[in-house]
């Protein structure tokens, strides 16, 4: 009787390779979904059309162009984050892929990390595409505005005045501060992807997940008002105070990630301040992922 031995590598408790495999698979699955193309095309049409929309307003064309483009990026990355993540677990359960993966065995933590990384990859890709289109539209409008300004300039204007005019156009169009602004838009969407993943670990349907996520989006923007009222106002009943405390502690402060409006207005964001805000976003993602695992680890499938 002979025995054959196969040289399988030993099973590792935590494998970045497995996570990467799940993440790339999730990314490809999401890219193939129609909702991705629908949202991306809609966002790109909105960003592209903002170049023409500016003709309807007077004087400051670039303010509208930047507000509309960055607003579109903000809405669509958030929508993508919520819609794509909400359907991840229910779809895997429906297709029975989840059972196949977890039976391999793949730890549930790896599965969740892989799924989230897949969504984050998709969000990064779509943010990059939208940012590239935005940069092209902005740059072409800037060049057009400079040509128009130079051709229409007062012939008696000094060199200094002409240079100031060009400088002002450039300052109102593209500033480097827009890049951290776009990164913060991405981080806000990443936060929502992690939060939606957390909700989907205990939600009974993906509709519930989406509705809850949207509600948290609105509450999260009002959270600082509730927090300030809870901490500073002395009036109000005990019940009100408890309610405000729960709102303040449970929901994220989304206004902290709403810097792009002021960046468009010309505010420069200091590197340290940007890093602190970004770090907070990363902490939110990690904590929500951990809590999602905490629920998912004991979930009966």
């Amino acid at each position: 009787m002979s025995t054959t031995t196969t040289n399988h590598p030993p099973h590792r408790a935590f494998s970045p390779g497995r996570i990467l495999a799940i993440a790339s698979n999730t990314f490809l699955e999401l890219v193939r979904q129609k909702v991705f193309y629908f949202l991306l095309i809609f966002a790109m049409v909105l960003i592209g059309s903002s170049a023409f929309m500016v003709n309807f307003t007077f004087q400051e064309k670039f303010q509208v162009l930047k507000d509309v483009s960055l607003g579109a990026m903000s809405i669509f990355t958030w929508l993508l984050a919520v819609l794509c993540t909400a359907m991840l677990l229910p779809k895997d359960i429906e297709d029975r892929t989840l059972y196949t993966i977890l039976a391999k065995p793949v730890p549930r933590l790896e599965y969740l990390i892989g799924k989230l990384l897949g969504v984050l990859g998709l969000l990064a890709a779509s943010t990059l595409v939208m940012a590239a289109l935005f940069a092209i539209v902005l740059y072409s409008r800037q060049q057009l505005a400079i040509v128009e300004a130079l051709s229409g300039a007062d012939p008696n204007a000094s060199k200094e005045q002409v240079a100031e005019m060009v400088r002002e156009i450039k300052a109102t169009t593209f500033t480097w501060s827009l890049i951290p602004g776009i990164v913060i838009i991405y981080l806000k969407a990443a936060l929502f992807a992690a939060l939606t993943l957390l909700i989907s670990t205990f939600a009974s349907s993906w509709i519930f997940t989406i509705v809850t996520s949207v509600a948290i989006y609105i509450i999260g923007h009002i959270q600082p008002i509730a927090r300030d009222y809870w901490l500073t106002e002395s009036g109000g009943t005990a019940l009100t105070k408890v309610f405000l405390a729960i709102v303040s502690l449970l929901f994220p402060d989304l206004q902290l990630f709403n810097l792009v409006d002021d960046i468009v207005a010309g505010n420069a964001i200091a590197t340290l301040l940007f890093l602190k805000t970004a770090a907070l976003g990363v902490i939110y993602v990690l904590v929500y992922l951990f809590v999602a695992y905490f629920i998912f680890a004991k979930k009966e499938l």
Partner: protein
Amino acid sequence: MMKRISLALVLLLLFGAVRMPLEQALDKEHEAAFFRGAKLNLQLREKIGQGSFLAALSGFRSIVADLLWIQANTAWQNTEWGKMVMIFDSVVTLQPRVIMFWDLAAWHMAYNASRAARDNPKQPREALRIKAQREYFELGKDYLERGIRNNPDRYTLYDRLGLLLRDKFEDHCGAAAAYAKAAEFPDAPGYEKRFAAYELSHCPGREREAYEMLLKIYNMGPEEHLPTLLSRLKAMQEKLNIPEDQRIKFSSEVE
């Protein structure tokens, strides 16, 4: 499972307690860097409506402000000045850091609305037309002053205030102060200091100060020897009776 979800809620509440002081500190840093300056209150909700207010609260205040701005454009085409003031007030509340909104709101009031009030064919009494015109000048000035309070780190609105005080109020001392303030900013264009000196030369009682300021700019080099500067310097030399040996000699072309 319910026990697990309850524990998860407790974890989230604990996370909330840990992050709250950090978020408050970050919030303060944002405010110090002029972020989150918009104050969305019930008064604004009444002006812009529930839907727009909710959109503004949900992180889309810049888009709401832009839509209102487009409405202001329509109101301008219909010369509805009162409606424009209402819209401008909402826009600058939503976006207090956008210089352009303050600047154009002030310009519309002080230059366009004031002209329309002065030429109002429905008002036969000239005194009342002049009064209405002055009220619009004041409204324009008020936008600029409020804009400066919201944007003390930028020179542009000081420049516009200088222009308004010079053109509409003929307050040369005030205009000089505004231009001088604009010139203090490191990114301000070079003409701010010249404009400050020109205006000061028209300010009664401050001719000596203006002369010294003009002389200082003149000594900066030939690129500063612009026709208005030479003309004001010549006028100041005459007015202050500067001794002949200390005077700068100008060509006869200088007025």
